[in-house]
């Protein structure tokens, strides 16, 4: 006997585990137990095998591996005693998987036990087989199970019936063998046997069409009679559940009748009477009674139509809806959802009750009711239903508002009878829950607004009123800002008045006030602020008298930490300041947005789930916007004709810039002169890594507001970059050049010539600067041609100019002679020199180079050194 294992009883082990205060302690106890059980297993200890297996089952429940005990189950099952067999079968069901080969070994023991003289052992074997049988076992043991269906003890018969279900699920071919035995079981009086026989019958019907036909013909009448007896039976105490006679049997009977009656008018006809009896006679004040009614309703809905019954059924559901029990209301809504496709009219009659359920205290009921209401809405009831829902929106729970607004918006979009009503309802929703609507909702609203030219004035005035009362709702602010930008002139002049409107007086300054408040509001996010800037630019042309004030507001964003805003405000300021002649053309009213294109695109991009307005803020750690939905792009490219939006290049470019180059500049700062690294980093950040092609195309996109003006605006902006550069700080000058470079017509990249790389400012001191231009021969990616250009900004001439470079071992460097050794001052000329670098680790490491420049200034030797590690990464 093993000295370790035997001492602790199951009870003691459980106690020890329960006494553990931490998970680590528990693991230690379990480990120790498992070790002693393993030891006992290897000693082939017979006395405590079943105790050890019981322990393993407990350990298994706690989530520890117990595979080493699997063979023990088999040994116990093969033992002769009842306690061993019982634990062995329990372990078999809990620890083993039908896919494991070990299971094959148990088939023989099972066969013996199915033929055992003790019916309890037979019961254990049936239970195990019913739980874990594999297809092979099912085939091998089906004859035994079939025989047991006629066993004298009803407990064995009912278990055999359920075991047969597993068998025919695993091997559907065997179904026909069971049809006749089941037909005779269905005539039994014993409730348990009848219950299981009905379940087996239902499963036979699903796997075999022939069985279904057979049972339909031979057994429908009998089953109807059984149900009739059950409904009218006197009180049977042993099957009573809260005063209802064997509700579970009735439910099973209703279910099998549903299967038999579905799609067959004759069978349905046979059961009409009894269904009506069940529906009217069952008491509905207890859960058990309601369970029967619920099942009955489902059966009535599935069998062939007999009008009267369906109305009865839906009325039962209507009664359920006002039941105090949450569970009953919940299932009623589920069932009504199914019933709506069968008899929509009957469900419509309970609309008022369903609408009440939208206001239920239980969130899952509210959600279901809302979905049901959504299905009930049609052209005739859309107006009153929407009104109800919007009224409820005002008082609903915060966390329900998201769902509710989404559904209301969807209803309004789908069924709105006219645009005026659509706009009114959307404004109401936005005012109530503007922070909960998805982006596509207000995008859609803007599209509708542009398509309703006679309502522009009305809309912009309504929005002006709305923003006064609901300025805290982001979506209201956005739509209002957009509309005021576009239709500001209609706002102040009361143009396009509708009869129902009250005139309001709004001055140009009032309109600008709204936008100023919006842009300064601290909760406004990037999208809103960027929209404000665009609106301001538009208003500067619509309201010439406010031009100076607008310019001041725009200027305040020049120092914004958000790159997008900073850039836009600098650009817009220049437009207001210097380009009055093209401004009015530039900011013309948007062309009407094409609804078809928009809805098509929306359908296409729907799975990508546009983030909700209150969702993740568009910031990454150092405060630069990801600009994923840069609003300017987003809104304006609605008008562009090509369906593929370019804006995806925006975030990539920014991320590249920030992700890639911060790293390289950080590593560089360790090796170069410390005082320079700061500005270097900034320079690198902004001057490298930005592939001009992408930058260019997206900005061009932005300004394609009016397609005709495309050319002029691009040119205008191209020239615009110069004055900005001169006024900017020298250290950041080159950065701005680079960014604005993009405004030029997008450089066409010859595809076959390999990728193009931006020029690199390799070295810059107060007087000397070196710029590298890169090129590659197609077909030899590891070789880079560098053309170095040296220029001298000081007033003196440098003579005996020598440039030297060194590279690490994985690179090979070839220097060609320089074009000259004299570098004239004042930037009047330059020296060029060609370098050829071969990167043996192309794709893994990037270029790095140490340089030394020596020259004579007034015959004095001067030496400058530096390291370049900010080469484009894939050279």
């Amino acid at each position, binding site marked *: 006997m093993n000295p370790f294992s035997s001492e602790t009883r199951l009870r003691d082990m459980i106690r020890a585990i329960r006494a553990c205060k931490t998970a680590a302690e528990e693991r230690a106890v379990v480990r120790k137990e498992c070790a002693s059980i393993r030891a006992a297993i290897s000693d082939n200890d017979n006395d405590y095998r079943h105790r050890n297996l019981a322990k393993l089952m407990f350990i298994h*429940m706690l989530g520890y591996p*117990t595979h080493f005990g699997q063979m023990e189950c088999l040994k116990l099952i093969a033992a002769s005693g009842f306690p061993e067999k019982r634990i062995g079968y329990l372990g078999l069901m809990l620890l083993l998987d*039908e896919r494991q080969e070990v299971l094959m070994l148990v088939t023989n023991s099972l066969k013996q036990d199915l033929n055992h003289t003790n019916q309890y052992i037979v*019961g254990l074997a049936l239970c195990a087989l019913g739980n874990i049988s594999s297809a092979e076992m099912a085939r091998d043991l089906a004859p035994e199970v079939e025989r047991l269906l006629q066993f004298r003890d009803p407990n064995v018969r009912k278990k055999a019936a359920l075991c047969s279900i597993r068998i025919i699920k695993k091997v559907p071919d065997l179904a026909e063998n069971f049809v006749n035995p089941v037909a005779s079981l269905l005539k039994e009086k014993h409730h348990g046997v009848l219950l299981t026989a009905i379940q087996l019958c239902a499963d036979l019907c699903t796997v075999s069409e022939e069985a279904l036909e057979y049972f339909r013909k031979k057994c429908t009448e009998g089953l109807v009679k059984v149900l009739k007896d059950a409904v009218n039976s006197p009180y049977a105490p042993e099957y009573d559940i809260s005063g209802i006679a064997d509700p*579970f049997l009735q*439910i099973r009977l209703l279910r099998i009748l549903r299967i038999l009656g579905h799609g067959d008018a004759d069978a349905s006809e046979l059961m009409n009477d009894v269904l009506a009896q069940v529906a009217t006679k069952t008491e509905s004040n207890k859960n058990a009674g309601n*369970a029967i009614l619920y099942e009955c309703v489902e059966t009535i809905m599935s069998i062939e139509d007999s009008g009267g019954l369906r109305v009865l059924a839906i009325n039962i559901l209507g009664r359920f809806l006002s039941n105090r029990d949450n569970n009953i209301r919940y299932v009623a809504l589920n069932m009504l959802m199914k019933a709506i496709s069968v008899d929509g009219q009957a469900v419509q009659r309970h609309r008022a009750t369903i609408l009440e359920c939208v206001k239920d205290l239980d969130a899952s009921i509210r959600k279901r009711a809302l979905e049901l209401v959504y299905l009930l809405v049609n052209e005739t009831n859309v107006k009153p239903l929407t009104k109800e829902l919007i009224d409820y929106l005002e008082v609903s729970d915060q966390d329900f508002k998201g769902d509710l607004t989404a559904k209301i918006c969807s209803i309004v979009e789908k069924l709105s009878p006219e645009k005026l009503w659509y706009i009114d309802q959307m404004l109401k929703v936005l005012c109530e829950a503007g922070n909960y609507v998805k982006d596509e909702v207000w995008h859609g609203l803007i599209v509708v607004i542009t398509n309703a030219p006679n309502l522009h004035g009305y809309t912009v005035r309504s929005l002006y009123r709305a923003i006064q009362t609901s300025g805290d709702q982001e979506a209201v602010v956005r739509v209002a800002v957009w509309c005021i930008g576009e239709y500001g002139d209609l706002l102040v002049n009361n143009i396009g008045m509708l009869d129902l409107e009250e005139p309001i007086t709004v001055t140009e300054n009032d309109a600008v006030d709204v936008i100023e408040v919006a842009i300064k509001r601290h909760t406004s996010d990037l999208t809103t602020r960027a929209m404000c800037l665009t609106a301001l630019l538009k208003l500067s042309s619509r309201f010439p008298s406010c031009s100076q004030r607008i310019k001041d507001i725009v200027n305040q964003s020049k120092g914004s930490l958000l790159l997008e805003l900073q850039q836009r405000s600098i650009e817009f300021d220049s437009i207001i300041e210097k380009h009055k002649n093209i401004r009015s053309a530039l900011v013309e009213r948007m062309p009407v947005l094409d609804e078809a294109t928009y809805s098509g695109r929306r359908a296409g991009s729907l799975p990508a789930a546009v983030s909700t307005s209150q969702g993740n803020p568009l910031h990454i750690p150092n405060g630069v916007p990801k600009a994923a939905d840069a609003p300017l792009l987003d809104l304006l490219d609605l008008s562009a004709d090509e369906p593929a939006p370019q804006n995806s290049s925006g975030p990539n470019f920014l991320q590249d810039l920030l992700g890639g180059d911060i790293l390289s500049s950080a590593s560089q700062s360790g090796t170069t002169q410390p005082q320079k690294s700061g500005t270097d980093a900034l320079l690198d950040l902004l001057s490298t890594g930005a592939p001009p092609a992408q930058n260019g195309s997206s900005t061009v996109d932005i300004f394609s507001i009016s397609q005709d003006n495309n050319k002029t605006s691009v040119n205008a902006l191209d020239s615009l970059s110069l004055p900005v550069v001169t006024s900017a700080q020298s250290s950041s000058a080159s950065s701005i050049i680079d960014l604005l470079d993009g405004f030029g017509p997008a450089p066409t990249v010859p595809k076959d010539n390999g990728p193009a790389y931006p020029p690199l400012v390799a070295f810059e001191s107060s007087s000397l600067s070196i710029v590298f231009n890169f090129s590659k021969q197609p077909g030899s990616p590891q070789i880079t041609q560098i053309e170095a250009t040296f220029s001298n900004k000081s007033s003196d001439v440098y003579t005996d100019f020598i440039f030297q470079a060194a590279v690490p071992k994985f690179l090979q460097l070839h220097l060609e002679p320089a074009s000259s050794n004299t570098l004239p001052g004042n930037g009047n000329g330059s020296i060029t020199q060609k370098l050829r670098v071969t990167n043996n680790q192309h794709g893994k490491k990037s270029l790095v180079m140490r340089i030394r420049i020596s020259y004579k200034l007034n015959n004095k030797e001067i030496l400058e050194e530096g390291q370049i590690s900010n080469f484009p990464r894939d050279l």
Partner: protein
Amino acid sequence: MIRAVIVINDQGKPRLIKFYDYQPVEKQQEIIRNIYAVLCSRAENVSNFVQDSTFGPDTRLVYKTFATLYFIVIFDESENELAILDLMQVFVETLDKCFSNVCELDIVFNFNKVHTILDEIILGGQVVEMSSSEVIKAVDDISRLEKNPNSIVRVQKSISGWQ
């Protein structure tokens, strides 16, 4: 079909786990953790049904709390939710009669007896018996047999009366 019967306490500790489709032990624990997370965050006066996608889109979960324990049944669309609630009631009533005033500790220390009781109520995911007196009779016979393995003959005699 019933997919699983689970009993956990209000700390999330499993007290009874029975899956009718085999699940590896890690998956079982994950399912239990997920269920516990859902259940302990539910408000009090809400329905007992949870939409559960552990076993596919159509599976549903019914739970009921009894003192410190959550009783949970996961099942597919072929079962009636309200009837499953009654089934849980039968299960708990049976436990109550077998242990005379069942409490969490009874279930912890007699988990294999609880399994035997459950096996008399549900077999292979299907309901065998809804009468708790029938279940108790069967369980009593089994435990008598357990205590006195040689009483097989005597039990057979008592059975003969059923024929």
